[in-house]
């Protein structure tokens, strides 16, 4: 049962690869398969929270020899989030007409890779699923098949391939240090490994995930890729694929190498703060909506790093909250990028307020969790930084809102007739979800606490 979403997506991806995804019926079929996988992963999340993690050894081998798959609350939450984002993006394209035959199959391959990645308890297997997701993503970035899409695809593939190579080197270094690949044994043995080599391995892995997330010194590829690709793919990149980076940072940093993470606290704080300020200032200086959103992504992941630096007690559940809510916000904003109409304008405002962290939207929760954690850990200046970052994001989000949606009614209708109703409803539903989480936050708060506890060993 644990592998059901993975298996369903994989089998469906193989089947849909042979079919013409441009046809409406095929698109609907792919969406419903993905929806089934998503519903199963929601159920699995609920089950894991109630009854604790589920473990399975592939091929009935003894544990220690076979590859271990383990679903805990952290993995289940991220799997559900990513599948949901992929489903929204796929539906968005199906509503408007899919442009290339391979699109539904590629989304399903990406879903396969992501499900496996959040499920595995083996670091080399993590790399394999990481590559499966990335390969699907390289092709997806070129979706649309215009000149700019291909340029974006080439940049994305070259830079992220280097990131994957770094990750592979990090995995080999960890194997050299600990002699094991399953995460439990690695976590145990890493504590007795030498400090300096373990720190080196941790740094290499940190760089790999930072490239994926687009943190400040590794952000150079992000803006041109996010603007060069189509809105649905940009939503996938920032809502589903970036989860690899945040999940990887918290799983490897918080779960496997906590000692190294702690010793890197000053670096995390510096890089996180620089990301927030750089992303915010760059976003203000841009005019086109996709550029602003791309730089805003760089700023928002900075918060993840700050929360990671605060430490396991209050920080880890804040990391999870920030990643989940950022993924939802960015999916909503990228999808509504090219749409027009009142419904979309309302949805966009909710997304914008959520990025800025203003109640009653869900973004407030993540900022509140970060501020609370910072006060508990005696980092008063983080509070100031979060408020400054919030001001920057209100400023740039309202700037694009004003330019795009806040224009006189008659002229808007003359220039941009409202977009298709089904797309607008999809975006509005996403906005409602963000609003609902903001008004009734208990389930997500409990879930993120549970996931953080699973990571530090309390939830087993």
């Amino acid at each position, binding site marked *: 049962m644990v592998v059901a979403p993975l298996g369903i997506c994989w089998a469906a991806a193989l089947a849909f690869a042979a079919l013409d995804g441009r046809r409406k019926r095929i698109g609907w079929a792919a969406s419903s398969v993905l929806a089934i996988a998503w519903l199963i992963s929601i159920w699995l999340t609920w089950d894991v929270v109630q009854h604790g993690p589920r473990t399975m050894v592939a091929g009935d081998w003894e544990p220690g020899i076979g590859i271990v798959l383990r679903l805990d609350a952290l993995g289940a939450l991220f799997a559900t989030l990513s599948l949901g984002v992929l489903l929204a993006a796929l539906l968005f394209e199906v509503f408007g007409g899919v442009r290339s035959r391979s699109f539904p199959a590629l989304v399903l391959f990406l879903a396969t890779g992501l499900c496996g990645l959040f499920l595995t308890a083996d670091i080399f297997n993590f790399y394999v699923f990481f590559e499966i997701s990335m390969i699907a993503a*390289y092709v997806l970035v070129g979706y649309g098949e215009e*000149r700019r899409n*291909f340029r974006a*695809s080439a940049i994305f593939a070259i830079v992220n*391939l280097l990131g994957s190579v770094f990750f592979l080197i990090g995995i080999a270094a960890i194997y050299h240090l600990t002699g094991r690949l399953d995460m439990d044994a690695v976590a145990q043995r890493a504590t007795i490994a030498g400090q300096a080599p373990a720190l080196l391995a941790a740094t290499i892995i940190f760089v790999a995930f930072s490239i994926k997330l687009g943190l400040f010194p590794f952000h150079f590829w992000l803006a041109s890729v996010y603007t060069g690709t189509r809105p649905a793919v940009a939503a996938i990149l920032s809502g589903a694929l970036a989860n690899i980076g945040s999940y990887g940072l918290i799983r490897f940093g918080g779960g496997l190498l906590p000692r190294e993470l702690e010793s890197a606290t000053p670096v995390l704080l510096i890089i996180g703060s620089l990301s927030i300020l750089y992303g915010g200032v760059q976003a203000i200086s841009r005019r086109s909506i996709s550029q602003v959103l791309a730089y805003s992504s760089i700023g928002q992941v900075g918060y993840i790093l700050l929360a990671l630096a605060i430490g396991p007690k209050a920080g880890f559940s804040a990391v999870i909250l920030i990643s989940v809510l950022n993924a939802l916000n960015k999916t909503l904003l990228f999808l509504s990028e090219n749409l027009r109409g009142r419904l979309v304008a309302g949805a966009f405002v909710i997304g914008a307020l959520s990025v800025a962290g203003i109640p009653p939207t869900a973004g407030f929760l993540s900022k509140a969790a970060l501020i609370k954690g910072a006060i508990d850990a005696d980092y008063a200046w983080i509070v100031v930084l979060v408020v400054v970052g919030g001001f920057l994001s209100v400023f740039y989000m309202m700037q694009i809102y004003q*330019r795009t949606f806040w*224009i006189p009614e008659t002229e808007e209708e003359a220039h941009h007739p409202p977009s298709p109703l089904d797309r607008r409803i999809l975006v509005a539903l996403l906005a409602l979800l963000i609003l609902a989480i903001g008004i009734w936050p208990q389930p997500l708060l409990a879930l993120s606490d549970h996931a953080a506890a699973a990571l530090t060993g309390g939830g087993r």
Partner: protein
Amino acid sequence: MILAFSAGIGILFMAGSYLLMKHDLIRVVAGVVLISNAANLFIMAAALTRGRAPILPLANKLDVSDPVVQAMTLTAIVISFGVSALLLAIVYRVYLSHRTVDIDQLGDVESRQVEQEERTDLQDEPELPADLETGEVRA
């Protein structure tokens, strides 16, 4: 042996990084291939042990070589091979649509497009009452 491995990995990585700086996308791809092969060699170097082939049943459990390293390297080689092929395909599509693989020329196309976008954005923008303006300088 350690020296040979480190020298080999170092030279591969160095040559790969050098090619990455080039302005020709094909050379960049070659650089990526070299660097991923340096990583494969690194896995071997990280934990390679000498010994008998690890096939059950084992007579003596102590003198077998570590099979995990070889399995990892083999997987990594297959993945990097596949990804390199995909990367070449992407570069080929870039060539088909732009008729060039020179990074400078591609960058020119990119910046022209961005510039054009910002300009149409300006034209699209209707006149707003002065108090709603955020004080941007108009080109």
